[in-house]
């Protein structure tokens, strides 16, 4: 019986990582599409989100099955509960990538709008955070997870700079208000992606150490 639950848990880990890979791809593609104004690529991101949604439901069902059939405790319980939450966060990241992709065609229709460099900086940071948080899941690495938490501040600051740029832009060129608001909303989505990566990192800390560090600032 013991062997069996271990197999189930290993499979669960594999599945969550597969979703992670798809989600990472979705972010990368949506950002590339944004930078290159590639509406075809953006449409592919939207289409692929269906697959992420499907896998999310599967992983959730798998978690519920393990909870009901094996009643795991201690580390096993923490793994299943963390996977449930990480699963949810990854699906949300997928949706955010889709939202960014949607803005690509809107921005393309609005004509030439230059993308602030700050958006690229933000996107790079957020992607890195997602990558690291998933690596922390794979390796059960709370130290890396703590680094991800710290990195979130840089993204938040970057987001504030974009917001200020957008406000200044609207004042200077009110006719560009729609495009600027879309850029603002892209930056908001990227910031949310970084927040989700932070959540995942916090779940890794819980998974490994059993401590809930959420809502606790400066936990080193």
């Amino acid at each position, binding site marked *: 019986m013991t062997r069996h639950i271990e197999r189930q848990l290993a499979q669960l880990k594999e599945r969550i990582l597969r979703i992670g890979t798809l989600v990472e791809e979705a972010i990368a593609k949506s950002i590339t599409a944004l930078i290159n104004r590639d509406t075809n690529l953006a449409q592919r991101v939207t289409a692929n989100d269906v697959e992420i949604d499907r896998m999310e439901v599967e992983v959730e069902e798998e978690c519920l099955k393990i909870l009901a059939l094996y009643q795991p405790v201690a580390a096993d*319980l923490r793994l299943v509960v963390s996977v449930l939450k990480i699963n949810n966060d990854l699906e949300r990241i997928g949706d955010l990538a889709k939202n960014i992709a949607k803005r690509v065609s809107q921005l393309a229709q609005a004509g030439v709008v230059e993308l602030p460099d700050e958006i690229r900086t933000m996107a790079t940071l957020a992607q890195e955070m997602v990558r690291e948080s998933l690596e922390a899941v794979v390796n059960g690495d709370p130290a890396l997870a703590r680094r991800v938490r710290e990195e979130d501040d840089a993204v938040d600051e970057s987001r504030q700079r974009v917001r200020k740029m957008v406000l200044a832009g609207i004042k200077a060129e009110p006719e560009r208000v729609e495009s600027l608001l879309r850029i603002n909303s892209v930056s908001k989505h990227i910031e949310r992606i970084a927040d989700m990566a932070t959540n995942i990192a916090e779940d890794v800390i819980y998974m490994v150490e*059993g401590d809930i560090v959420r809502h606790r600032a400066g936990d080193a």
Partner: protein
Amino acid sequence: MPRDTEQSPPAAVLNEQPAVVGDRLLAVANGEDIPSEVHHRVREETPVLEIDRFNLWYGSKQAVHAISMPIPHNQVTALVGPSGCGKSTLLRSVNRLNDLVQNVRITGDMRLNGDSIYDPRMDVIDLRKRMGMVFQKPNPFPMSIYENVVYALRIDGERNRGVLDEVCEVSLRGAALWDEVKDRLHDSALGLSGGQQQRLCIARAIAAEPEVLLLDEPCSALDPIATGKVEDLIQELRGRYSVLMVTHNMQQASRASDYTAFMYLGRLIEYGPTSDIFTKPILQETESYVTGRFG
């Protein structure tokens, strides 16, 4: 995991999977003394029973090694661990049932509300009156339900019908059995189902107002429904009685107890609030046991 192949560990350990047996368990298997990991919340409780550096030998074989643990007042404490870890021996030592076994030698002491249990002047009969014990198999006396419950009072010479009636009802209610048997109190207790018999034994034990209630695998002979009822009852007893319970069933410990102590080869390994032991134990060794990696 490093393992000294020259010094072959006992067979019990050879059967385990080395990858998940922690260093402490290996040390224990090699006969070393290891400190018990006792969570601070255990120490914050007022103890009803204090087990103090207690050792017990069956002949030359040591079954309990230097166990020190406070048992909290009005809480349910579960002893868990693989077969042969000494949990039943420890439980039976509390009311000195091991006195009846030949070649038993003990050192250390236990104190019930401050009174030394192993003091040579302690009257064992008096001591046992201060505790209740319920065994694996229900053992109602071959008499009526009523007489079973009031047995302890009868042998103490209580004759007042009013007192006996009241104790009978209060105890049966306390054991969540009253509604099922109130119309047939004078029928034979042997006609009850297994689960009812076990709850009757608990009613009989609490009728004497014990300072501590000892339960030795109280559900191992019961079906799941009867087990559920006895577990519900144990939870009901919490806050009113101090319960020390041995169980093989990990889920029973997690469902029914406030504190859980994990024992291994006669040692206390880790002892803490049940919710912590089953969600984030301190020791890897405890983790391996409660998740079913060995034992």
